[in-house]
């Protein structure tokens, strides 16, 4: 495998998808924990943190998602034909769920503070339903769920909904969201000096660590039956998964010992990064088994180069801006502690 334009394109997209998975998990999970603590009457321990950290950044989170689906049409236009035709219903449901979250920020945290309980629950629930609505795409890409009817792709819902692979991916996405979010919020709450919230989130992080790792292993098992070829590739990369597991153990250890939550979160990002890329690598070269590979669906060379140049230029603009954003809202002690309120 040499470094071709195709590889650059898919790597860029996979990287941004990874970033979306991390930032969106934090967002989705926080909403769920918030709703749960409202449900158990824990006086909205988390509400403050959600307003301090998530409200200024959720639009940026959303752009990572937009980046992925616009970028994939740009680099691999044929995906529009296969995935565009088949995903109408699941993607539309995901859009409605995203709308619930967006409108919660708009109407409940910025605006007139409509803090109706039902709304908080809907916001929390949408955080769980979204990964469940988005992650089946990963199962679909394994092949076996799309049939060609009169030359047009059609999604076989029955096969999809009865597939253990699809359900194990959904369960993994749920546990991963809750785990990632809990580890991050433990760190953030600790920075804010909020002992109660830290303890609560630490407890959640430890609770969800086990299910997260078990469901991840479950997928590998399911793949063995569903896509032997993909499974072989995965096993060939066993050492990357071993590293990923060590990083996981590191995170859990630090959280358990109440030490260095920042490092714990970094290890967690490392854990998911290694696993996510090993998974992507083993999927290579298929975008949709067996119809689409990154080679036959690739755009023309001129466009590919133009997109990559635009990407590099865009990154030059993006990275300093993101740095500024995080410096102000993640690393600024005063702000994180909630000492000062500067909202318009």
């Amino acid at each position, binding site marked *: 495998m040499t470094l071709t334009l195709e590889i650059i394109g898919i790597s860029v997209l996979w990287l941004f998808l990874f970033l979306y998975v991390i930032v969106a998990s934090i967002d989705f999970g926080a909403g769920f924990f918030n709703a749960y603590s409202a449900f158990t009457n824990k006086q909205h321990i988390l509400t403050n943190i959600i307003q301090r950290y998530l409200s*200024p950044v959720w639009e940026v989170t959303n752009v990572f998602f937009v980046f992925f689906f616009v970028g994939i049409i740009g680099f691999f236009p044929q995906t529009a034909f296969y995935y*565009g035709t088949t995903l109408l219903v699941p993607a539309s449901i995901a859009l409605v769920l995203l709308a619930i979250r967006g*409108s919660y920020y*708009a109407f409940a945290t910025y605006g007139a503070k409509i803090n109706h309980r039902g709304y908080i629950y809907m916001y929390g629930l949408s955080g769980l339903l979204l990964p469940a609505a988005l992650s089946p795409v990963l199962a679909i890409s394994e092949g076996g769920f799309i049939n060609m009817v009169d030359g047009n792709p059609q999604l076989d819902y029955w096969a999809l909904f009865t597939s253990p692979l699809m359900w194990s991916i959904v369960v993994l996405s749920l546990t991963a969201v809750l785990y990632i979010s809990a580890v991050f919020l433990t760190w953030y709450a600790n920075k804010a000096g909020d002992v109660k919230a830290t303890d609560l989130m630490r407890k959640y992080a430890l609770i969800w660590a086990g299910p997260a790792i078990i469901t991840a292993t479950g997928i590998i098992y399911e793949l063995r039956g569903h896509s032997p070829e993909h499974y072989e590739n995965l096993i060939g990369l066993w050492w990357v998964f071993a590293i990923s597991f060590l990083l996981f153990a590191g995170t859990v250890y630090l959280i358990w010992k109440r030490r260095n939550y920042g490092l714990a979160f970094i290890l967690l990002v490392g854990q998911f990064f290694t696993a996510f890329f090993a998974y992507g690598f083993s999927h290579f070269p298929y975008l949709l088994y067996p119809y689409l590979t990154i080679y036959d669906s690739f755009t023309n060379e001129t466009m590919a180069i133009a997109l990559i140049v*635009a990407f590099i230029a865009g990154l030059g603009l993006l990275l300093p801006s993101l740095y500024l954003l995080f410096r102000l809202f993640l690393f600024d002690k005063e702000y994180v502690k909630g000492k000062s309120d500067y*909202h318009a």
Partner: protein
Amino acid sequence: MVFEDTALLSRILTLLTLSFHIIYATIGVGVPLMIMIAQWVGIKKNDDHYILMARRWARGFVITVAVGVVTGTAIGLQLSLLWPNFMQVAGNVIALPLFMEVFAFFFEAIFLGIYLYTWDRFEDQRKHLLLLIPVALGAAASSVFITIVNAFMNSPQGFEVLNGELVNVSPFLAIFNPAMPTKVAHVVATAFLTCAFLLASIAALRMIRGSNHIYHKKALHLTMKLGLVFAIATAIIGDFSGKYLAEYQPEKLAAAEWHFETEEGADLVLFGVLDGEEPKYAIRIPYALSILAHGLPDSEVTGLNEFPKDEVPPLWIHYLFDTMVSIGMWLAFISFVYFVASWRGWKFIKQKWFLWLTLISGPLALVAIEAGWWFTEVGRQPWILRGYMTVEEAATTSGQVDLMIILFAGLYFILGIGTIVVLLRMYKRNPIEKELADREAQRDGGKE
């Protein structure tokens, strides 16, 4: 049969989403500039009222932006979901501006987050104002990029079709297509125009409700002056748009003007009804169509007789065009009257009837935006990519579009109502008089 149906349903859903998104998108493009101007005037004149104006506008803006992001994400995905065959071609030729648009979104979203959460965090107000510049630039850039894509749909170039394959693709030729200059300029100018009038409407509303506060007078004065500038710009650019159409999409102009036979010295037909090929009860302005099309009273304007029947867009776009142009004239007129009257010190502009006329102008501008887009999009029929691909060919084959229409109609209904309720509540709970008094109190109580 089924095939045709999904094309129609996809059109309806696209129409629904875009017509809804465009309201928020227009506000998203124009309002940052208005906030910037108000804050700048406030800093320069050292006048707290203008600073507060910027701050209050910004508060409302957050809410519309959030809904804009949600609906924009919807249309972004729907383009691939509903028009997969078109997007496959588009991805090969016009993906570059779509991709660059994402970076504009990033830029806007990041700095908007920072701007909103840093009020009074800096000693120097000017630093805070600086943060708004990337927001305004990002928003304008995103409208520029997406409009380029739309311009490409109207006058595609930068590729060749050889045995059904796309070859010789040039992303830059595709971007700099003939429709692009007028379209981009017109869209951006009308967004500014619309926002100036929407904000003027709010000021007028407060004054009608009996508030005598100087704050509203300042707001009205500022926005009406900006409105005049952009109304003139819009009319001039609109005229260029007409010339573009005459040159590159004559069938659209001819359909809009009920211009059936190619002729010299053509009349402009305003309103009326169609009786066969004969406009009735219409206002006819002699030579005006020739002037709009080519700048000369006796130039020749292509008529519908030169096109095959199945490539002629629906003739009812005439009303959309008339609506847009009439509203454009009205906005230029009322802001001009306001300008002259306030210069000469005439009092009638403070009277209720004039304020009412100002009040309706903001919503009218939004109507013009909708009419303009419907005109352009329906006027492109039957093509999705003019001359290359029809709407039928582009549409999805998925059978569930009808259910999705119901789903999204419900969603937009709730989002629309939500926006209105939340905005009203926000300003009712914190009227300007109260906010000014609070600030006074805070200042008298010594620095925090």
